[in-house]
């Protein structure tokens, strides 16, 4: 099979432009890139379908071509065009929605990714506890101020001095503790002290 080199070059140019546009931030440019890429691929399928020929209808002959063109390639291109069109409509809706929300047509970075990148101290680590040391990230005895059900241990039952200190540090945030069922707030003993 001999392929049409001219068409292949066009395919290459279309796909290259499409990829370039897809790397943009603007949704509209990405959509254009998608369409160019899609058209490039459609042309590629047309090329691989073989040399040009008459319309693939049995019994219909043509003065120019002896053979029929490959109908399967055309069927594939039609399917691909329909799919690309549907998706293009959806992307336009997304672009419009993005414009309505952000008043600009651009894809932002994932905020969660940004948060992970910007982590600087152990206090921002995912496994940090409030009672952990904010600078070194080490565990402290503060976590011991809670019993095995997660309820705060009343102040008078705390045994050693470290627990007591950490307990007071924790209470500074005026944290309303829920009891284990999550039904009603449980006033923390000593939490209201001046």
């Amino acid at each position: 099979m001999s392929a049409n080199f001219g068409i292949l070059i066009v395919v290459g140019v279309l796909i290259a432009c499409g990829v370039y546009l897809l790397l943009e931030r603007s949704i509209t440019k990405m959509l254009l890139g998608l369409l160019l890429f899609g058209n490039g691929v459609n042309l590629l399928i047309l090329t691989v379908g073989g040399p040009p020929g008459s319309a693939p209808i049995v019994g219909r002959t043509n003065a120019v071509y002896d053979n029929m063109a490959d109908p399967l390639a055309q069927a594939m291109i039609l399917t691909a065009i329909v799919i690309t069109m549907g998706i293009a409509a959806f992307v336009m809706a997304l672009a419009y929605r993005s414009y309505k929300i952000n008043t600009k047509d651009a894809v932002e970075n994932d905020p969660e990714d940004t948060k992970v990148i910007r982590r600087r101290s152990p206090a921002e680590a995912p496994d940090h506890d409030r009672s952990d040391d904010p600078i070194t990230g080490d565990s402290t005895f503060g976590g011991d101020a809670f019993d095995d059900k997660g309820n705060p241990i009343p102040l008078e039952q705390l045994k050693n001095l470290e627990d007591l200190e950490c307990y007071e540090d924790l209470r500074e945030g005026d944290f309303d503790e829920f009891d284990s069922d999550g039904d009603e707030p449980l006033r923390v003993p000593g939490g209201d002290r001046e």
Partner: protein
Amino acid sequence: MTLSPDLIHTLIPLPVLVPMLAAAVTLIGGRRPRFQRAVTMSALVIGLVVACLLLYLTDRDGIATLQVGGWDSPIGITLVVDQLSAVMLVVSSIVLLAVMGFAVGQGIHDGTERQPVSIFLPTYLALTAGISNAFLAGDLFNLYVGFEVLLAASFVLLTLGASADRVRAGVSYVMVSMVSSLIFLVGIALAYAATGTLNLAQMATRLDGIPVGTRTAVFGVLLVAFGIKAAVFPLSTWLPDSYPTAPAPVTAVFAGLLTKVGVYAIIRAHTLLFPQGELDNVLMICGLLTMLVGIFGAIAQTDIKRLLSFTLVSHIGYMVFGIALSTQQGLSGAIYYVAHHIIVQTALFLVVGLIERQAGSSSLRRLGGLAAASPVLALVFLVPALNLAGIPPFSGFIGKVALLQAGVAHPSALSWVLVAGGTVTSLLTLYVVARVWTKAFWRSRADAPEGDLADVSPSALIDESEEDIAFDDRADVGRMPALMLIPTIGVVVVGLALTLFAGQFIAITDRAAADLRDRSIYIDAVLGPGYAEQAAAAGGTR
């Protein structure tokens, strides 16, 4: 009761037809939620029954085909069901049914006044049809169409409600998916140029005759396309960015099924079209990097949904490893692992849905005290979490042992590196889920750094969590609705059943792997007996 072998020809198209028709019916009945739910539920139950029958029949009688429209292959469109397709259909039907129950249960319980329910169920059914079509496709272009149907449906499901977050995630997801589809189309064009056919069976016989370089190039292009869909390492970065923003049930079904459709396509292409294994070393290295990079990503995450998305990427590496071994043992292990992983990831994401609803967050910086607050929730999290990490006796352990054994039996040194990588990944997975357990379930909420903040009241489908409120001000959501809890427990129990019936199930995956590795079974079933031999003889004289 014995089932007639002819029954299967009636059954083959049903996994595609029933959900497609049901999607049309539910779209028409968009204003009647109860009618919609009834139709969806019955369509998915029918799908599950049909899939189970297909698995039984293919396991008894072997592979079966259906020539759609009465045109014989290779001209007509062929639907093929073998043990692999049937196993995938059964597992996906279970997951789709359970997740639908979960979503509907949350909708019924928490109110659906402002929810886009009228579009949710039809789209969900279209997704089902696309997934089934991909599993049944007997020609490359039909596989592409199956992918497109499920992708188009997934675009809608991912951007339900179109909040700012979901539009952002949706745009990158749509773009990446479309690029992968276009690369798939390029692969189809190249394969068509090389072989002059799209029928997988005929293509398999003809690919033997073309030069190694050309064949490897075609495989490489297809592998990139499938690799994006399956989230194999250098092509996996889109997944953790897009999945976590979707509604909880949607994330559950995406995480469970969509990547596995890509894995299925890789298995099919690797066993049927390109069994010579030219790219096996590349696949092995990709598998290793997928495992390690994925799990390292998971360690850094604060949000449980993102953390689970990273473990999802990581564990795709195990399946790629099993496929790249090119042995029957490896393939059987990979198929078992696919089934295990679909079930366990879906279960975990459904549990996260419950956690979000109950505790108002999925961030480890906010959660705490859940084990005391809801022991049931703790149990349904702990079982699949340990299962994912591969603690015996759960199915994750069995799957990993099967894969590691296959790796050890493989002669190359690279497979030993993968065995080591797989073990490390398993341990790190245990570390990651243990951290979720200690922070979200054991630690007191008062000890969580941002434990006093929470999301507004939960919603099944739309995203209203723009602003945080104080945990104390959060409206009481009440007990977990039974309709949400039962599907979750159901998926967890199916995961346990994979342990209980591991012997029988591995026997099925062994037979599936054996049939996949003997290509002539597939080729003869599609193109008529003796075709494979004739083609081989013709190829030899060329």
